[in-house]
């Protein structure tokens, strides 16, 4: 028999002891204390800290024996982890979901109803724009954590200097874009290059503002080559001329930086996060709402009013969650006024409360950033009341019941079509027909085909 050399023996021992050391650290925890896994997408350090210091602190005091482990993740990362967790049969106790994904999970019986929680928060106090988003078959399966409207963010001073009114139709918008583009020095606008935005959220907005929809309401047949979509694609193709050439390779946050530093006159997708960029990167004398203002989207020939996306992930608890009751108790504390105000203030205006009582509350409005940029806040409140916002990725309110929007978005079918039309300059009808075919095939594969 061979002898194991001393070197190998020593190395082996070292490896084993290393292994013992490496596992020691977390093994200490977890025996007596029960841990709730709470995942969300608000990655700002100050938001994470606020949640920890307010709702989590009170929860852990009220329920000794339970600890909450919160994880803040970007949406893509959360999606990956969620899929792994679901596959292993151990989803988190509480998580954020994209609203267009929730129906898909509901139809697979993976979510728990939360009617009692909604009543505890105050069914009548929750803003109508988000109350029924996760209302399926008579029960509530989700509650939005906060809402943030999106819109164009424009250099008001530049538009005023040209004496142009806010654009109402596609034609108006194209004219404005032409006026604001200064060859080589500044572009009119820039769309985010991420598939989620240019390939799903914005097409949804176009359809919503042009009398269209993703699918036929009854048969669920895709409408990717319908008239509203073709008109929107034509608009997008023309708008592309006024955007920087490399826009499809850049990100949403890059567009905000471009706005702040004057490379573009309007950020196509903007929420209150833009304010942060303005305050950090814009020239010192321009960091105010005289220079930077929200601007509503134009509508298409088939629509009456331009619509933009309302961002707001919803909390959800899974059927398989380990501690569902505690998760609901935590949420009750989350929405408690004293905690919820601090949460919303951690990223002002971007996190607007879903509770009507709070949106106009003096204490809420006394936040310095909200005060400084009050016109942005007012714009959102007005838009909410006038119905100018629609949840991210939806084309009509009923879209919340469609159980395959996540898959449609994820497939990139629409994104491919948009990029070929806008950047590739290809024929609109041909690309739309191709996307239609791919979408019909996808939905058939998913087993949701209802048309014949």
């Amino acid at each position, binding site marked *: *028999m*061979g002898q194991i050399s001393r070197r190998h023996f020593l190395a082996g021992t070292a490896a084993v002891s290393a292994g013992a050391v490496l596992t020691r650290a977390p093994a200490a925890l977890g025996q007596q204390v029960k841990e709730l896994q709470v995942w969300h997408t608000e990655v700002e350090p100050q938001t994470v800290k606020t949640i920890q210091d307010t709702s989590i602190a009170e929860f852990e005091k009220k329920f000794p024996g339970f600890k909450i482990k919160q994880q803040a993740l970007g949406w*893509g990362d959360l*999606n*990956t982890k969620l*899929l792994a967790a*679901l*596959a292993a*049969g151990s989803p988190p106790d509480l998580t954020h979901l994209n609203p267009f994904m929730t129906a*898909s*999970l509901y139809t*697979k019986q*993976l979510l728990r109803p939360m009617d009692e929680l909604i009543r505890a928060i105050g069914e009548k106090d929750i803003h109508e724009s988000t109350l029924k988003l996760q209302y399926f078959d008579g029960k509530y399966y989700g509650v939005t954590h906060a809402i943030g409207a999106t819109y164009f963010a424009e250099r008001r001073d530049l538009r005023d200097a040209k004496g142009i009114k806010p654009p109402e139709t596609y034609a108006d918008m194209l004219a404005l874009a032409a006026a604001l583009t200064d060859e*080589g020095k500044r572009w009119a606008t820039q769309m985010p*290059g*991420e*598939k*989620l935005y*240019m*390939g799903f959220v914005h097409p949804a907005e176009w359809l919503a503002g042009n009398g269209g929809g993703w699918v036929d309401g009854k048969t669920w047949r895709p409408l990717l080559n319908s008239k509203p979509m073709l008109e929107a694609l034509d608009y997008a193709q023309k708008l592309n001329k006024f955007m*920087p*050439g*490399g*826009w*499809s*390779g*850049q*990100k949403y946050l*890059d567009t905000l930086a*471009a706005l702040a530093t004057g*490379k573009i006159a309007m950020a196509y997708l903007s929420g209150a996060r833009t304010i942060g960029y303005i305050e950090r990167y814009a020239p010192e004398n321009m960091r105010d709402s005289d220079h930077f203002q929200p601007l509503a989207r134009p509508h298409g020939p088939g629509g009456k009013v331009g619509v933009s996306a309302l961002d707001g992930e919803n909390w959800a608890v899974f059927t398989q969650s380990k501690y569902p009751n505690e998760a609901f108790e935590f949420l009750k504390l989350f929405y408690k006024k004293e905690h919820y105000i601090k949460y919303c203030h951690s990223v002002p205006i971007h996190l607007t409360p879903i509770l009507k009582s709070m949106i106009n509350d003096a204490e809420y409005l006394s936040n310095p950033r909200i005060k400084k940029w009050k016109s942005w806040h007012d714009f959102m409140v007005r838009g909410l009341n006038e119905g100018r916002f629609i949840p991210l990725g939806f084309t009509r309110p009923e879209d919340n019941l469609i159980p395959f929007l*996540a*898959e449609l*978005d*994820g*497939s*990139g079918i629409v*994104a*491919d079509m*948009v*990029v*070929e039309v806008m*950047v*590739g300059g290809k024929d609109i009808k041909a690309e739309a027909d191709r996307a239609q075919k791919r979408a019909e095939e*996808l939905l058939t*594969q*998913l087993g949701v085909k209802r048309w014949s």
Partner: protein
Amino acid sequence: MTRHPLVGWLLLAPSLLLLGGLVVFPILYNIWLSLHDKHAFMPVQTFVGLRHYLYFARDVEFWTSVEYGVIYAGGTLLLQLLLGISAALLLNEGFRGRNLLRGVVLFPYMIPTIVAVILWKWLLNDSYGLVNHLLLAAGLVRVPVAWLGKDHIMQSLIITSVWQFFPFVVVTYLARLQTIPPELYEAAKVDGATAWRRFVHVTLPQTANVLFVIVLLRSIFMFTKFDTVWLMAGEGGVSRYVRTLPVYAYARSFTYLQAGMGAALAVLMFLLLVAITAVYFRVFHAEEATG
């Protein structure tokens, strides 16, 4: 007595245990999953046999992703080899500052992929990037090049990947160069051979074995590379122009949410590599059985 075959197995046992335990199961799971229809959210699946494979055989996206994968892997590999071998030859010579340079050349390899991608996206940014600034200043281009746009994204991806991974070729090739007995070169010089002939007749044959392995391993590595491609262009509109097979497989599982189909793509990728490797071995008559 000490060359007992059983000792060979014993020495190999830990490797086999780890691989068998941690990799073989996931691979078998994938193969099993590829024969089923499974939505990524659901723990249930229905058996569909070879349906996914037949679908992909006719799927335009699949063949496009294979094409992109070959372009990406082939392009990166070729340039990595050229750059890496030249650098290794250079660093094999003696000159002042060589040791420092050996350390510096490792730098691209050291940084986490995400930082490398961020760095290059920053350099290639069409508005603020240094590369465009230099090109414009030198008069080589008249308008800023959209490096990350559809026309050049594949090139940008290849540049980033070559930059990031060529040091590995340097290190491995240099390691082998260092062990070539200098007498072989002396003998060749005595015979009047020029530097080029010395390279062809001494260096190449001596390093053939390691070169074979480098090309093999690097090709597999680059063909299955996911993170660089994904981080650079995966979630953007331009992704359709660099959608290599690993990215497509990931998309089918994690974003289309069709887990069974994604698994089938993984298996197809695997089979492709096995086939190509088999050909590679045959062509290059590997396996000088020694020891």
